[in-house]
């Protein structure tokens, strides 16, 4: 109710700007190196993707393989565009991932808010059901889902890829969790006293408070939707590919043409990285600076 165990989250939203030499200097020689190593390990495969994408097939067959980028990226990229309609696939992926992210953020935060702060009959049972929906292994589900899409006439259209994952149980639970912790009841009480309907509560109190969690959920959802492969492959047509399906076409060959596939992969990852770079500051800043400042 009052948020994190043992601490009273007051009405002031606290900042975790860590200042003070005492806090910073202790362990500075282990903290940064450790984090830098983590960063290098995290980034290596992506870096590797770009490195291979810029080499020739012969070069990467050597041992040890080259660790620095070569000069072949444009040639490989041109091959990618010659082989598949990559720009179209990118656009489709953007539409799909964007739509899924938007609907996830909207509907999951709404449901999370309702589960966390509103009282209604059957609330606990319904939360349980949400949890249970996450426990289902999806791999065999492609067949009935495809049958359904065919029946609806949605096969080969982007809607078929958007609708099944437009909201996730994980998103609902995450939003509920965060709302419980980060939105104090007093605030809601005060807003109610001022004549706010529940929707007003949602828009004006909860959503601003949820911004950090929504940022994280949005990022994760976007990436998950972007990387989804199995379902788009079965339900979309070759004229309507998403980027991962296009990559599969690149991988078609008697043998894996790694420079070609990874050039495609690199270009598929690039938009996400750009979103990262552009909005990263804002998102992470938002997470750390707290919520609304008026």
């Amino acid at each position: 109710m009052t948020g994190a165990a043992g601490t009273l989250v007051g009405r002031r939203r606290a900042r975790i700007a860590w200042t003070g030499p005492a806090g910073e200097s202790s362990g500075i020689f282990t903290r940064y190196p450790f984090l830098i190593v983590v960063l290098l390990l995290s980034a290596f495969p992506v870096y590797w993707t770009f490195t291979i994408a810029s080499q020739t097939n012969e070069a990467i067959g050597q041992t040890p393989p080259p660790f620095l980028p070569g000069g072949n990226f444009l040639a490989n990229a041109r091959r990618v565009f010659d082989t598949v309609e990559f720009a179209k696939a990118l656009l489709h992926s953007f539409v799909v991932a964007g739509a899924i992210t938007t609907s996830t953020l909207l509907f999951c935060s709404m449901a999370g808010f309702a589960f966390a702060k509103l009282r209604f009959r059957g609330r606990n049972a319904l939360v349980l059901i949400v949890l249970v929906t996450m426990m289902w292994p999806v791999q065999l589900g492609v067949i009935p889902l495809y049958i359904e899409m065919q029946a609806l006439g949605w096969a080969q259209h982007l809607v078929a890829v958007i609708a099944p994952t437009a909201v996730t149980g994980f998103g609902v639970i995450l939003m509920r969790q965060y709302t419980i912790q980060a939105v104090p009841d007093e605030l809601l009480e005060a807003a109610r006293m001022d004549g706010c309907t529940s929707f007003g509560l949602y828009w004006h109190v909860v959503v601003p408070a949820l911004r950090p969690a929504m940022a994280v959920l949005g990022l994760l959802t976007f990436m998950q939707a972007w990387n989804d492969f199995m379902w788009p492959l079965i339900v979309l047509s070759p004229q309507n590919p998403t980027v991962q399906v296009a990559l599969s076409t690149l991988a078609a060959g008697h043998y894996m043409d790694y420079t070609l596939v990874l050039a495609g992969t690199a270009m598929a990852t690039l938009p996400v990285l750009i979103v990262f770079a552009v909005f990263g500051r804002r998102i992470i800043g938002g997470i750390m600076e707290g919520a609304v400042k008026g």
Partner: protein
Amino acid sequence: MRVPRWHVAVAGWLLTVAVVFAGASCAKSKPEPAPDKGADKPVQAEKTVAGADPAAGKTAAPPAEKIKLAINDFGVFGYKPLYAEYQQSHPNIEIVESVNEYNSHHTNLINHLAAGSGAADIEAVDEGFMAQLKSRPEQFVNLLDYGAGEREKDYAAFKWQASLSADAKKQIGLGTDVGGLAMCYRVDVFAKAKLPTDPAAVSALWPTWEKYVETGIKFKAAKTGAAFFDSATNLYNGQVFQLDKSYYEPGTNTVIVDKNPAIKAAWDLTMKAIDQGLSAKLVAWQPDWVTAFQKGTFATITCPAWMQGYIKENAPGTAGKWNIAAVPGAAGNWGGSWLTIPAQSKHPKEAYELAAFLTAPAQQVRVFKEVGNFPSAIPAMHDPSVEGFKNPFFNDAQTGKIFGESAVNLKPQYQGEKHGPIRKAIEDGITRVEQGRQKSAESFAQAVKDAFRAAR
């Protein structure tokens, strides 16, 4: 004044919804046909002609209905120029191809067959999946109904029979290419081991698989530092390919893997080779295996026609170091595909005509010249450009002749519906022994158990 947050949210949502529907409706618009610049003109001509002569064999409506044929395949079939030509001569046909990676393609096909919809008009099927699919012939059009019977004489016997249903009444595929089987060997490593290096002499070293293993033992004694072959499973499969019957009693669903002495013999010979240390214990397609080509870690490898390109692409530095000899028994096949027509297709007749065109001997020769896929039609194999083909990378080996002979020599072998999983069960058994996890007797017993389990 700041724009209220909810304005922004609603606008964003509406925008997304709008884009989604725009995207969805874009999808409904005309899909891109296979590259063909002349497509428009023949349609126009067709309209005029049809208008001028309604009795020209088309239906009553003035313009001939354009039929869209979807064809799904994988890898490199090399059909693009053929599509262009076909669309020129068949103006009412529009061909849309979708190419996917090998596993994705087949997974997709199987999913669509299981769901009852979504398969293309023509689906390419590889050898690895044919046994499973032909055991469900009701999922496919019987090509004999459309006149495929006349093609039987074109094909190597094993190729024609491999896509035939168990009762031999339904033919579900027209063969495209074959792998054939030969033995690729490293000339330099053989020289180091004081073995002959001329292909004819090397072929003479191993008329049987037993002699192949004996050669390997001699090779090992020469201590060149290289292993004799890459992986024991290839040795095993090479033998099993040549058997009259392997895992199933022909024409039935009875699994005989435990009763077939030939299988046990193949297993035992493989075990002997492993015991003698002839195997490099690699697994095909793994990074280690690829590097091994460059480094000469193994001296021989059973290679089908399509592996030539692979070796060239991944180990270009070894040009001239390889040559190709016959495989023991001079017969075998690894790989190769067919074009099938799923029963779901709305245009089976047109699909058949296209498939027949693409797999006709003349076209198979053209594909061979373009992308190197080895023909499965005997007339194509005898075409001078195929038969006389020499691969410079492989020291001018007479690959056209060698692979063609191996395919023609191969006796047809009945493959029951779970042939693939049974084969995998045995291969896993061999791998377990190679990896030192189990001893031969134990591993074979388990492999047999797994085989029956797969077939249940």
